[in-house]
């Protein structure tokens, strides 16, 4: 949870988004596949990640790094089903 009494962190939102991207890549997730876009005062996360654990951790890190800004998530978890047909390359 964000501490409402704490002052907002210094630095522009653009730079904080960039720092989040660096943190996602450098951390234990090694995540480079999430797109981070500013939408006014909010940040939108999109992309497909390997597991629900990854998705939840990314969202936790984003809310931590971007405290005082709304974080919207449209992250998907990669599908693991078998295809029911192949593509014919004639």
């Amino acid at each position: 949870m964000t501490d409402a009494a704490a002052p907002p962190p210094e630095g522009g939102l653009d730079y904080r988004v960039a720092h989040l991207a660096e943190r996602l890549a450098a951390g234990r997730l090694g995540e480079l596949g999430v797109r981070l876009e500013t939408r006014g005062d909010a940040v939108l996360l999109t992309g497909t990640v390997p597991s629900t654990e990854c998705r939840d951790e990314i969202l936790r890190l984003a809310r931590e790094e971007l405290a005082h800004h709304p974080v919207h998530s449209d992250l998907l978890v990669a599908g693991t089903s078998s295809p029911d047909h192949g593509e014919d390359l004639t």
Partner: protein
Amino acid sequence: MIRVAAVGDIHMGPESQGTLRPSFETLPDCADVLLLAGDLTRHGTPEEAAVVAREIKDLGVPVVAVLGNHDHHDERPEEVTAILREAGAHVLEGQAAVVTAGDARIGVAGTKGFGGGFVGRCAGEFGEPLMKEFVRYTRRCADGLHGALKDLDQWDCDVRIALTHFSPVPDTLAGEPPEIYPFLGSYLLAEAIDTAGADLAVHGHAHAGTEHGMTSGGVRVRNVAQPVIGQAFHVYNLPGRPD
């Protein structure tokens, strides 16, 4: 008909164990070979490679792989390669392998590849040593792919497939921000494929890209990054040699 299953960018970590195995166990019913187009791990650690190894061991179809940039992050690609080979996979870098399905001989030439961009919007071998080395590295990968495809010419294959992690064409990057295309692939890979000849090119790396593309020489290209295909693998049916 030769049935080629392929997926890339499975990015396996400790909690991934078993997520793909149930689908992979259906492969003997629907495919003759499984191609893995790199980024099989998150950081390229031996522990993550062991997760992949258990996922692909004894599947009942041959497995042919290239590594991706994630598989290099821990700077132990040789260990990752050894662990995957121990599980029975062919792991290619500037090399070719022929696997058989009945009487059919399936040739696969592979390299990780690298970036640089596409014609008219690409990096050049000029200026600072780092910049020159960036382009030269891609050129070495492309030369390795070309040589491996030419090797397959000698080995009486029914089909020849180029397997890379980085993309040979911009078509399959559609959906990615155009500004990052130079980090997603290089025309040098497509030039190698068109010059040496192939029946299909398969790559990964571009999670937000699209599945279908073609080289300027007319070789079909498929981006099989798992986020793109949305499944454990896709299957491409190629005609074999006419009798």
